[in-house]
Structures are given as structure tokens and as C-alpha cells.
């Protein structure tokens, strides 16, 4: 993990946990790091792919791409968006976040806690378990995190 400079983790973790208590234990920091580095991968790790289904309740086909391809204009938009996120996290780490920055942290902590584990948060579905949310019937590929096939 190279996204956060030394010393960032503590401040960002504190902000994430302040927004959604318990989010860091469920992987919120990893979620944010994967988001900020999403374009370092090909395909970018923006949209987890469900793969191909053999039937209505089947499983993803082995070897299917774990992430959906972005179009070139979508890459442009995400590069712009992620640059904005990175600047906001710098302010968080520096102890000088704006209201918008804190709103972003709240949203990311929510995504990390209650979104699909493929994105690096909600470790083991623990976020869903703690609120009694049922596992999805048709999740995106669970192998979509670190080491995913392209």
C-alpha cells in the first residue's frame, strides 16, 4: 500500500471511524486506498464484475474478468474525481478538512462498511452482519479484490 504517505493512516483512520464507528476494523482504510489507486490497474478497479452466470442462481464463471472495463472518457472523469479525493484526504491528514471533505469521508466510510466486499471494505460481510442485512443473491465476483485477474 503506497497511497498514503507516512503518518496519514492514523489521521484518515480516525476520520473514517469517527464517521462510521467500526468502519476501519471492517476495512475502510483498504477501501479508500483501493479507490485512490483504482486507475493503477487494468481494468481499473472501479466496477467489480459479476462475471458470466450459468443460470439465474449460478456462480461467476472461473476466469471471468473481475473488473469491468472503463471507456476512455470514463477514465478521464475518474482521474479527475480521484484527484479531488486525494486532495481532500491530504487535508484530512493535515487536520484541516473542509465540510465537504468530511462529507466525502462519511460517504466513503459508508461505502466501505456496507458496500460489497469486492471493493476492499465490509470485510467478510461483517458490515452487513452487524445490521442484519442479507447477503446478495447475485454479488459481484468475490475474487475482485487484491490479486484479481484482469
Amino acid at each position, binding site marked *: 500500500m503506497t497511497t498514503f504517505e507516512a503518518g496519514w493512516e492514523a489521521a484518515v483512520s480516525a476520520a473514517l471511524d469517527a464517521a462510521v464507528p467500526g468502519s476501519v476494523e471492517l476495512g475502510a482504510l483498504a477501501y479508500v486506498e483501493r479507490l485512490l489507486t483504482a486507475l493503477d490497474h487494468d481494468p481499473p478497479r472501479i466496477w467489480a464484475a459479476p462475471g458470466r*452466470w450459468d443460470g439465474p442462481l449460478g456462480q461467476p464463471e472461473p476466469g471471468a474478468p473481475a473488473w469491468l472495463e472503463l471507456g476512455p472518457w470514463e477514465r478521464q472523469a475518474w482521474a479527475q474525481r480521484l484527484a479531488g479525493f486525494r486532495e481532500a484526504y491530504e487535508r484530512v491528514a493535515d487536520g484541516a478538512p473542509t465540510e465537504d471533505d468530511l462529507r466525502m469521508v462519511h460517504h466513503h466510510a459508508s461505502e466501505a462498511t*456496507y458496500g460489497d466486499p469486492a471493493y476492499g471494505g465490509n470485510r467478510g460481510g461483517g458490515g452487513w452482519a452487524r445490521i442484519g442485512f442479507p447477503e446478495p443473491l447475485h454479488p459481484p465476483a468475490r475474487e475482485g479484490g487484491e490479486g484479481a485477474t484482469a
Partner: protein
Amino acid sequence: MSDVDCDAVVVGSGPGGATAAEVLTAAGWSVIVLEKGRNHLLSLEAPHEPLRHFANDEIAAHRRFLLGPDPLLEPRTYRRTEADGERLAVGNVNNLPSTVGGGGIHADAKLPRFLEEDFCLRSTRGPVEGASVEDWPLAYDDLEPHYTAVEQLFGVAGDAEANPFAAWRSAPYPLPPGDDMPMAVVTSEAAERAGFHPYRAPTGINSIAADGRPACTDCGYCGGYGCPVQAKSDPIAALQRALRTGRCDLRPESYVTEIVRDASGRRATGVRYLDLREHPEPSVREVRAHHVVLAAGAFETPRLLLRQGLGGDLVGRYLTYHYQTFTVGIFGRDTGGERGRSVTHLHDDLLIDGPGLRAVAREAGLPWVRGGVVEHGAGHMPVEESTTYGPGEHHLPSMRDSALRRRFWVFTMQGEDLPQAANRIDLDPSVTDAWGLPAGRVTYAPHRHELVASAHAGPVHEAILRDAGAQAAFTATSPPQGDLDLHATANPLGIAPASKHVMGTARMGADPTTSVVSPEQRLWDCDNVLVCDSSVFVTSTGYNPTLTLAALAHRASTLLVGGGR
């Protein structure tokens, strides 16, 4: 060498464009469909099987713009009236999906027909001051065969006998109704006790395996999501049929920027588009065609016409949504909204003329009042819910208690929105999209009629939900009511209409001085250009628009075929 590339070029691949493509290719015409968005729906190679890019994934669908458009690329702007200045907000304003399949991808596919009266409201109810209530240039009877045809095409699941207010029909629904959401049965019984007539919603979702696609699995990720198993038929069924004729060429990432015309200016010879597969300088390409079919939706179709001064002075005007009234019941137990098709039951009673609504109108000094179809449903997005609760120690208890997910049930009234000339889409004077074209701008404020209808519906529905067992009930609206100036400063997008039902910006009519398209949906000033989306609606009615816009596209395309190439 032919002087055209195809008989018809269709702009947009949503329910309107897909239906038009199906009709035209079935008649032997060659068609090119240009879609601005990406393709996540079906293979472009025969036999055009689903791509299966969709999953039960709130992050992709709702947080990361999988279905498009990305507001950083395609911003829209919003203001209530001209008094707000050039704009109040820039961003996601009523964004329908920009992807192959268009709005049909994200909808939960409720497909009711309109009533007979919906086509002749001016005649049956009369005018309303400050609004432009007009009759449509066609009657329900004219459209009925096309309603039947698109119900067959989409494989609509429903019970033809269930709704006592429904218009006559020449054929039953092709599929039986899908599974009921248990809480919808409870709230329907309560609605019946209040004298209402709830019924199982007709939906374009397979209740049984059909048309080569499986039955719905009731996964719960319906409204707002692409279907993981493609049980939603609208619009994949029509696109697949068109493509499988071998006469349809579907081109995603093709952004139409211009309707090309001949020297007279009154005849289209094709369109030009940007090839968005290329970056950062997309090539401009041209498709030459005998006919142009615009099906880009009631936001993008007028935006294209306005850029070229086509269609006359009324293009963009009479924009309508549905004025949405959300009555929320908080129950002491789980409502089961995490599984099912989001909405399985409806009631129409507040659209039907009767003593109660007449009294409401009389008291408000209005000639009449109509509400809208009421959807019995729920949502279940935990990420969205989490962003609703504030940070801190109360967050987790709130999520566990889950008043806004596990224990809630909502009546959503899609209230009839009266057309007003001042409500419109136009071109923002300075905001542009990623390709330098002016952004579309919404100017919209509801008529007093909508507020009166909503104010009546809220307490009525709160009482029904309490009777159904709700511990508490409250009502909210979109746009919100009250003093909005604070919101206009702090969160202006929060006061823009949330409704995705966008209609009426290229009105159809029999008189070229008061309409944009003819009864055959041809532009009056360029008659080989058809409009096959909800732009042509004369009134919004109080019903979900998709089936009707598809039926209109079916009718207009059938008439076009009848006239020859």
C-alpha cells in the same frame, strides 16, 4: 453505391428507440442505432446474449455511475424559475441512465397503461389557469393495438382483471403476475379498508422463464439497478429481436451532435456523431439515412433540437415530471423490502374523478384535482441509509434500528404534473459538457395543482399505513415544499425534482403553431425526423410513462413503415 447507409438511424437505445428499431427491422428496413452511453447490456455479436455486467452492487450502480451518465462529463443545470438567475445547481439533475437500454435498465419496470381520459383531459376536465392542459391528438383507442403489441414484445406480467379503473384492452397480459412482496399485501388490505382498489402492478419483468430469459429471482436489487439475470425485459427483448434480424447495427459510445439536412433545411439526410471510443479527440462520423428517429429521452432530444434551432419555438417547453409524494410508514418489525421487485402493488384511486377529489378542488379554488398512481414499495440500500444518518456514536444504533430500511414501507404517488410553458429544458449559457456542447438546463417549478393534490394524498396515505401497522408515518415530497431559499443556497440539487419521469418537451399536436411534432410524431419543420420518446407527451398523466412512450414509438414506426422508405 447507395446514397444512404441505412433506411433509418435511431438516436438512443432505450425503450422508445429499441421499440422503433424492432418495428422497422421486422418490416425489412435497415437500421443503425446510435447510443451515447456504454454497452453493459448485450453482446453486439450474434446471437446477442446478455453481457451480465450487472450485479447486486450498490456501489457500482449508485455510487460510481455504472449506468451513466457521469456528471463530470455530462453536467446538467437546474433552477426553479428565471428569478434564480442562470442556474442554482450543476450536476446530476434527473439523470436517466446513459447506456445501451437507456432508462429501461434502471427502472423496476412498472408498465401500466394510461386511462382513456388521459388523452382528452382538456375535454373531460377543462382548462386550469396557469397551465396548458390540452387533449392529445390521438385517443386511447388509437393506441390500444400498440399497447397490446408492446406488452407482448416486453412480456409484461400482470392481471388484466385486477384494476377496476383500467382502460379496455384487447388481450390479456402475456405473463402472469410475479410474486407479491408480503408487506404490499398488508398495505393493500389496509388500502382496501380505506375504500381504495389496489392491484398487482403490471411489470416488464419475467414472472416465469420467457423469451429465452429466466424468471425474476426477487433478489431485491431492482429499482435503480441493472438486472443481474436479465429478467427485466424492457428493453433487451426489443433490442435482441432487432439485432437478430441481421438488419440492425447497434453502435454504443456514439454521441449524436447534429441532424444533417439537405439544402432546403426541411429534410434530414442523416446525423453526425462523435465516436466516443476515441479520446481525447473523437472522430466526427456521419450516418446517412432516409429517416431519423429521435429517442434520446425528453431531456436530450430537445437539447439536440435546440442546438440546431429545429422544431420551432416550443421545443423544450411544457417540461413535466411527476410530482412525487412519499408517505413513509415506520413499522415495529421488518417489512421485507430487502427482497422482491421493489414495487408489486399499485392503486389508482386518486386519479379517478369522484366526490372526494372534487371537494378538494373546490376548497382549493381549482377546477379539478388529480393525484397519481401510488406505488406500494420499499428500498433497501444500506450505503445510502448510512449516509443519511449522521456520524458518531448514534450511527450504528440507527443502522441497527433501521427505520429507513428494514422497518419502513413507502407509498410513492407519481402525481400528475400540469404542463406550463415556463417549465422547460434549454441550453445553459455557459456550462458545457466534456465535448464542449452546451449543457441542458432545467427550469422547473410545480403548479399549485400538484401541491394541492399532494397535500390531500399525504394524510390519506399516512392513515392507511397506520392502519397497516405503522408505528409512525410522515410525508415528504419532491420537489420539497415550504421555504426553500435556505436549501437553494445549501443544497440546491436537493430541491430539484427527483423524478426520473421526464416528459413533454417536444409536444405532439394537430396544430403546428402549438406543437412540435405531428400526430405521427414527425417534426413539423423536418418531416422525416420522428420523435419516439416521452418528449411528445401532451400531459404527464399520473402513470409511469415507459409503456406509453414505447406504444407511441410502436405506432409512429408502424405508420412510418406504412408510408414506405
